[in-house]
């Protein structure tokens, strides 16, 4: 194992490869973001329990409503939008706690902040990973949950689109909350307290758009508002999260 024990030839080969790597050019911002994203995805698939937890929560909550409220389809259909969105909001909140916590503990965030790359950009990549791991699966699960609540199959495309757009905003708003509560030991309750009020517009427009989609009418107006919220979050949330992370590193 020791360097002394290595043959001179192997040592020289190592040195040549090392020198080549040391002379490598800096990574572009896009490359850095791709790696930050890929790292989070790979880590998530190594820790499947953490990945499945919010999705299982969403499925359970939506399945419990028919049992608790009434098996009457018309009634279930009426509450379906609200149930779907409240469950999605809480499920995404459940996953938020892990967004930056491990990275803060093991020094990854510190290395990101000192990488010479834009921290805003790297945190955006992390938020995209979070959306891919929670928002996207939630949007894909939503039609099944909706159908178990008596929603017609015709509404499925609308539900998926609304969920996809809304969860983008949820992930990014959540990133701000997660970054702000980084320094705290038991941050769960505070995280909810910070994030839920900010998420209310998403909840309101999301539920309204879903309701219209289920009713078979045009849901473009609330969807546009939802999309505007998502764009706002995409542009501003990473900046706010980066500022919060910098403060937590001090």
């Amino acid at each position, binding site marked *: *194992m*020791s*360097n*002394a024990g*290595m043959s001179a030839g*192997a*040592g*020289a*080969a*190592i*040195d*040549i*490869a*090392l*020198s*080549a*790597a*040391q*002379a*490598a*050019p*800096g*990574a572009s911002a896009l*490359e*850095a973001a791709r*790696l*930050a994203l*890929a*790292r989070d995805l*790979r*880590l998530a698939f*190594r*820790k499947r329990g953490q990945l499945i937890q919010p999705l299982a929560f969403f499925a359970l909550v939506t399945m419990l409503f028919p049992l608790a409220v009434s098996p009457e389809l018309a009634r279930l259909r009426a509450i379906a939008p609200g149930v779907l969105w409240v469950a999605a909001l809480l499920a995404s909140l459940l996953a938020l706690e892990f967004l930056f916590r*491990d990275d803060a503990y*093991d*020094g*990854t965030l*510190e*290395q*990101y*902040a*000192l*990488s*010479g*790359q*834009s921290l805003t950009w*790297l945190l955006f990549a992390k938020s995209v990973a979070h959306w891919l791991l929670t928002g996207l699966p939630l949007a894909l699960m939503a039609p099944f949950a909706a159908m178990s609540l008596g929603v017609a199959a015709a509404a499925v495309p609308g539900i998926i689109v609304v969920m996809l757009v809304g969860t983008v905003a949820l992930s990014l708003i959540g990133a701000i909350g997660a970054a702000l509560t980084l320094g705290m030991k038991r941050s769960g309750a505070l995280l909810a307290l910070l994030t839920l009020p900010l998420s209310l517009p998403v909840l309101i427009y999301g539920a309204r758009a879903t309701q219209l989609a289920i009713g078979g009418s045009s849901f473009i107006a609330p969807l546009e508002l939802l999309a505007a919220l998502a764009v706002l979050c995409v542009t501003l949330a990473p900046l706010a999260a980066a500022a919060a992370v910098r403060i937590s*590193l*001090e």
Partner: protein
Amino acid sequence: MHAAAKAVVVRKSLGGNPVPVRFRPQADQGHQLRVTNLRKAAPQGAEQDCGYGANPMNLRDSRAVPANHLEAENLQLWRGDHHVLKGVGFTLSRGECLQVTGSNGAGKTTLLRTLCGLMVPEEGRVLWEGRDVRTDLPAFHSALMYLGHEAPLKADLTARENLYYWIGVRRRTPGAGLDAALSRVGADACRERLVRTLSAGQKRRVALAGLALMFCPLWLLDEPTTNLDAEGQQLVGALMAEQLARGGAIVVATHQQLPAAVRAARRLEMAA
């Protein structure tokens, strides 16, 4: 090719003779950098004895600043009521190593984190190549590598994956380079093992592999020899000597003796 040849020369010389050809200890200029951490802060802009006893040039005023020149001016920092950095100042040029010593809680880590820009001092500034680092933090950060006392590794990734993502965010690193770095630090066997299964010393070695890959002008190391066996400590010394030999600068916080290869480092004593 030239760079490769040079690296070989340095390494060979480290095998038997601890001092590589281009590395000259500055023992004759005195180890003590200058009295720092004074209770009363040095007045801003006061003439500083930079430790260049033999150098008649006033580096700061003439602006004849050598490249890779790190300078701290009268750093003052409080943590709550605790005055941690009490007017720390020093200069460091190419190929020089500064050892920050002091008892636990004296502020060694705080100093390193202030130098790299993670913490903002209440007063004073850090200059890199004559410019305040706050004016262009990203440029300064791409010139430095900070290694804290915890290795920045993910428990659920293998050693090689960790290096790939960690270093890859900063520079395009070929796979052969990653393997070479792991071999260089004697962590070959850990390559495909999850970091959670590694011992503390092995983790430290993987972190050192990251250091070996990052050829940047400034290293800030916090207790780099923690958890390492005697051979690992020599490895730290060899890596540091290589960094100095190619003209890089190092600030290392440790209360242990530095490895023999960099024993001639200047010292900065932090008073608790």
